[in-house]
């Protein structure tokens, strides 16, 4: 069963320079109990998409069209109060990009976790809330007595763990992790990934992991979405995507980030030439065509290709898909 189904979503930002179409016709789904990756270069709209699940868009951003169904509820039509009290953190929580600043510097870590519990479980007493907060810290391998300390006394990795503990405070059904390992050193990255994997199994979570680092997603996810300039260009089961990338952009991304197991790929290190387009004024036709090795007239002229079924667990949006590698 799908816990989250997003169809034809458009999220636009109003700026003085014009409308930024950060998410422009996205289909996205999360099957219950699975972990879904969202990959793409910086600025392609990953965070925007993630924030729209929680209706947390910045003031100048709004959902222009499309639908977001979460556990059968239409997220966009739920009123603010109901959404805040029943959905936020209670059913969907988020681990933020750059957790360095995601914790409030003037409150103790355990109090920040306890606050989340208080908001969604009004009956629990203060003592129990703190005790629960400490249990959560223990669960993410932090000494529970550290809860009495302030975020600045935590290392980067510990803050990220504390953020994860906080995200789990209300037993959410879906957790969105936005760049959970970015800005951490390699060893800590590995620890955080192991932790996420363990917690997901233990708590039967559904997970959306956002990252520009496709090797992180390769280790954590069952499915992968490849995003380019506000659109999903390829979706599929993780091994499908890695073994048989159909979109030229996906192929480029995979070559840019060789996975650890995949030593030979390093020899065919391939960078994607050019830079991602400005979302104020994206190119006509397929957005990737200016950088695509296989682009032809149709890619320039026709509207962006629809995402089409390739197989049961593989969809792609390209006029000239790459041939089967096998």
């Amino acid at each position, binding site marked *: 069963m799908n816990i989250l189904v997003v169809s034809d979503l458009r999220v636009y930002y109003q700026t003085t320079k014009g409308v930024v179409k950060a998410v422009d016709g996205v289909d996205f789904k999360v099957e219950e109990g699975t972990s879904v990756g969202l990959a793409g270069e910086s600025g392609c709209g990953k965070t925007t998409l993630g*924030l729209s699940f*929680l209706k*947390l868009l910045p003031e100048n951003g709004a959902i222009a069209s499309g639908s977001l169904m979460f556990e059968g509820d239409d997220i966009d039509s739920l009123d603010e109060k109901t959404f*805040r*009290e029943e959905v*936020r*953190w*209670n059913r969907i*929580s*988020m681990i*933020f990009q*750059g957790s360095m*600043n*995601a*914790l*409030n*510097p*003037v*409150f103790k870590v355990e109090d920040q976790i306890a*606050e*989340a519990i208080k*908001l*969604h479980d009004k009956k629990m007493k203060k003592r129990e809330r703190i005790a629960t907060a400490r249990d959560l810290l223990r669960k993410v391998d932090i000494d529970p007595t550290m809860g009495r300390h*302030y975020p*600045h006394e935590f290392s980067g990795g510990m803050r990220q763990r504390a*953020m994860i503990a*906080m995200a789990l405070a209300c037993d959410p059904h879906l957790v969105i992790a936005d760049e959970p390992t970015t800005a951490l050193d390699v060893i800590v990255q590995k620890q955080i990934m192991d932790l996420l994997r363990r917690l997901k199994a233990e708590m039967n979570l559904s997970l959306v992991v956002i990252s520009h680092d496709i090797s992180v997603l390769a280790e954590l996810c069952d499915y992968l979405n490849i995003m380019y300039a506000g659109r999903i260009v390829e979706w599929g089961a993780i091994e499908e995507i890695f073994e048989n990338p159909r979109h030229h952009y996906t192929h480029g991304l995979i070559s840019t980030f060789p996975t650890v197991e995949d030593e030979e790929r390093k020899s065919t290190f391939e960078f994607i030439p050019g830079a991602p387009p400005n979302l104020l004024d994206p190119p006509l036709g397929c957005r990737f065509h200016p950088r695509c090795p296989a682009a032809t007239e149709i890619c320039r002229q026709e509207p962006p290709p629809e995402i089409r079924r390739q197989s049961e667990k593989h969809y792609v949006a390209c006029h000239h898909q790459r041939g089967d590698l096998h």
Partner: protein
Amino acid sequence: MSLKRYILKRILYSLVLLFFALTLNFVIFRMAPGNPIQVVASGMRLEPEMVERLIELWGLQEPLHIQFIRYLKSTLTWDFGYSYNSLEPVSREIGERLGNTLLLMGVSLFFAIIFGTVFGIYAAYKRGSLFDLTSVTISLFSYALPTFWMGLLLIYVGGYVFGQFPLAGTMSRPPPIDPILKVFDKAWHLFLPSLTLFLFQYGFWLLMMRSTLLEALHEDYITTARAKGVPERDVLFKHAFRNAMLPLVTNVALQIPGLLNGAILTETVFSWRGLGLYTWSAIQFTDYPVLQALFYIFALVTIVCNLIVDIVYGYIDPRIQF
């Protein structure tokens, strides 16, 4: 390091600072032109024996370092010598006026902080609204207008056009006997000067509060709070305000010297019998002992305010490195 040691360190630092201020205050007046005898003697003819006696009375015949040590001792014991102008003890004259100045500054600062921050918070909350726009405009005006001009305007409007308020002074003459009426009489005199000084500060607090809050509202931890389901009111008053408190506290200390400056102008315009007016007349008369005492008190106030802020900061900002 513990909070206790941090506080101790701040106190020690303040004492060192105070010593430097005292030294500077001594040196400046030794280097200032004109000698006290000339100042006092100007306008009256003094007998040479009289001059001798004054020199001895004021200890001007002693070597400089002895004078300095005596100066330190007497300053620290709140003994500032005699006014060249009135020949009264300076400490007594200051004592009579200090209360009035503290009253004027305290009342205006208190209301400026209360109104400034409350409206500042509300303006930040309703950013972009008509309320926001008008309060920012008014604040910029009141912040930018010169104090003496504002004072004169208020005297004209409050004292002349409406005729409800006294034009000058600290108390009616003769003052009412009944203690309750006395309080009312003082408040009645206090109203216009404190309103002037209030307007001088109010805009600053509003703009400061509004901008620090808006800045705090863009921090990542605010998005976290919203994601957790914290209602918008608590996002503002709890999560953003607690962080905006820090610059607020610092600014109280930083504003005090500027406030003294404003008080001097206001007291002069309103003939409010406080330290500001006293400073003004002491400058007119080149009354060195008085000026020296006043400079010392101003330095002391500034140092103490900074010390208090440092200590308060130690309590409210967990990030302070002790």
